[in-house]
């Protein structure tokens, strides 16, 4: 069947070279804005990069804010913990609570208070 091929070269758009070049040039001319846009648009890596830095900055802000919040929240429980720890040590050493409070306040108890405390804890 291929031997019966009809010669359509008269209709071949590439046969007239000058005309064909004009056709190609016209297409390329009109395609230039789109091609230029494609050249300017960044690659996938660059696009990710463009998003990466703002994302990193946002993450840093969140971390800073979180640390500040944790620090502020940690202030009160920290002090409480210190008392708890101290009272825990006193208790483990067998020191009466009243005696411990005298020690912390640097105030000397009266003789009657001291004796009363001793009697209560015996």
């Amino acid at each position, binding site marked *: 069947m291929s031997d*019966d091929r009809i010669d359509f070269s008269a209709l071949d758009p*590439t046969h007239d070279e000058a005309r064909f070049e004009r056709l190609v040039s016209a297409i390329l001319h009109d395609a230039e804005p*789109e091609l230029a846009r*494609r050249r300017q648009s960044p690659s996938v890596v660059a696009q990710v990069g463009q998003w990466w830095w703002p994302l990193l900055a946002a993450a840093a802000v969140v971390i800073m804010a979180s640390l500040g919040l944790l620090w502020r929240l940690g202030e009160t429980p920290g002090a409480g913990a210190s008392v708890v720890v101290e009272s825990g040590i006193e208790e483990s050493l067998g020191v009466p609570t009243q005696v411990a409070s005298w020690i912390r306040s640097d105030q000397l108890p009266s003789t009657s208070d001291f004796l009363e405390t001793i009697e209560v804890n015996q």
Partner: protein
Amino acid sequence: MHQTLASVSDATLVEQARSGAVRAFEELVRRHFRAAYAVALALLGNQMDAEDACHDGFLKALQRLEECRSPEKFGAWVVQIVRNRARNYREYRAVRSAAPLESTAAASRDDSARDLERSELRQLLAAALGELSEMQREVVLLHDLEGWKHGEIAQSLGISEVAARQHLFVARRQLRESLGPQIAKEYLA
């Protein structure tokens, strides 16, 4: 310029064109223009309109290059775009009095006798093609002008390979009858 890209695959050219490479896109145009033109001519029967459809089709293809899922089959893809453009032309440009191929060919004045002879042949071929069905025109032009294989034509037109062969056989026979034995012998060997 484009000769250096002749051995580069369509897939690579499409990838480069997606990044805005002018030469890659130019090579794609040069490589597939004839097939696109064959389809447009089969549908529009007019050289100028066929060229316009190809022009718009390639620009459309560039804009939609990301939608080309199989870049190695860019040719079939762009031909489909041009086919759709040509159909739109035919539907929406009905008001325009499309100059037939014969008059367009006559308008391009060729001084030499050889070119005149070529213009006459172009007119005869266009007239003979006009007597075929749209499907027959597309099949015979894609096969005999562009050199597509039956499988490629069948896939492009959504028909079986056997049907493509039948269309080609009938189209050729009809063309030879239309052109007459004298012309067929003189011009078409």
